[in-house]
């Protein structure tokens, strides 16, 4: 089948799949960012058990393959009495992975803040939480725009593990298997999905660059 034939037959499904990929990516990214901030605050807190917990979280979820994590969530959690809908399983996987990497990006952002600024903040009498809120987190966020753009794209590509569970509607990669079990679509079915990913990544990259230019801190 040619690209146009595939689109004629499965065009609606492709649109749905693209929207599903977008939706899962967006939800995952927002949740991953929120958790990444919390985990990073734990990792820089003066309370040792919190620091250790934060580091442990990052080490666990940064070092586990997405598909392995998905299998655990889909097949192992029910034994613990937790059975989640499939789309939630996929989002949980990408959020756990993404937040671990996101926290690492924030940490490197924090490391660019000179110890001098922290001392200055303490000298004017800011408490630890004020210092985090006013100095550390804003600067870490603003210097992490580019890595976070990359993370957004990585999260989008990771949602492809949704092809391994029965999602409804399907996301872009799952749709490829679906079509190829019904028609002889071949490489063209992959090509159309790939366009969806690449097109999105290009736009996200452009937006990220633009935000970075605005947010970047002059040093």
């Amino acid at each position: 089948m040619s690209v146009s034939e595939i689109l004629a037959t499965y065009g609606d499904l492709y649109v749905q799949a693209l929207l599903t990929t977008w939706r899962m990516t967006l939800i995952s990214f927002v949740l991953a960012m929120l958790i990444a901030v919390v985990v990073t605050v734990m990792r820089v807190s003066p309370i040792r058990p919190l620091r250790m917990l934060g580091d442990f979280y990052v080490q666990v979820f940064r070092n586990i393959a997405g598909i392995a994590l998905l299998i655990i969530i889909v097949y192992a959690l029910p034994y613990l009495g937790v059975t989640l809908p499939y789309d939630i399983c996929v989002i949980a996987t990408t959020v756990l992975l993404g937040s671990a990497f996101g926290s690492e990006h924030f940490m490197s952002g924090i490391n660019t803040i000179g110890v001098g600024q922290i001392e200055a903040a303490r000298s004017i009498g800011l408490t630890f939480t004020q210092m985090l809120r006013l100095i550390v987190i804003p600067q870490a966020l603003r210097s992490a725009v580019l890595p976070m753009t990359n993370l957004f794209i990585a999260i989008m590509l990771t949602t492809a593990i949704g092809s391994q569970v029965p999602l409804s509607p399907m996301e872009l990669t799952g749709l490829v298997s679906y079509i190829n079990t019904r028609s002889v679509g071949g490489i063209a079915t992959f090509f159309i999905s790939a366009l969806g990913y690449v097109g999105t990544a290009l736009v996200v990259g452009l937006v990220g660059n633009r935000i970075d230019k605005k947010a970047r801190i002059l040093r």
Partner: protein
Amino acid sequence: MAEDHSRKSPEGPAPIIELRQVNKYFGKLHVLNNINLKVAKGEVLVVIGPSGSGKSTMCRAINRLETIDSGEILIEGKLLPQEGKQLAQVRAELGMVFQSFNLFAHKTILDNVTMGPIEVLGMSRGDAEKRAMALLERVGVAEQASKVPAQLSGGQQQRVAIARSLAMNPKAMLFDEPTSALDPEMINEVLAVMVELAQGGMTMVVVTHEMSFARRVADRVVFMADGEILEKGSPEEFFDHPQTARAKTFLESIQGH
């Protein structure tokens, strides 16, 4: 700011800052060796000494940016708190100016100066900005208020840092080598602000290599070497009649500058 221009003797009623038998080690290095020091209200104390003498460490210990291993530090007769809100409160009452300015890089000049008053003193934004603009005017950088630190010269940044400290209405100000990171032509603009502060009655502890500033402005000079205070005295006594061999060598070594 205190109204009186007279200098009280260091033995006056309640010293603003007092160090009693303070010791600190970096590993085996004895960086602060039995430091005893009182700074009276309105006094300008200049600390000089060769690099590695512990003078910066002493200055930073006064608002606990450095911890100490033994001894006591008292602010207005009260023991410096170890941590938490009480420590933050004491820090808010002591201004600190650093060698490397340390302005908040993501904030405008105005926001740098208003942050403390708004967040720590609970001042309204309007009042804080009015006060900040007056202070920026006083240190001569009011027209830079909407810029960010990286757009200013070192001398301008340091003057903003002084304004940021002043905005907290401090009881005393600590200067940790405020001109050491500056190009020569910018040193005087910062020193001029400090001279004006001293003349206005501000209590100041100044770690510096600017001997002319020490001679002109200091009520008392403290000479440190190898973590110890070797000499205390008026600038005239110290510069014209140093007692210790260490101080004589030091003064000779900087004569060429």
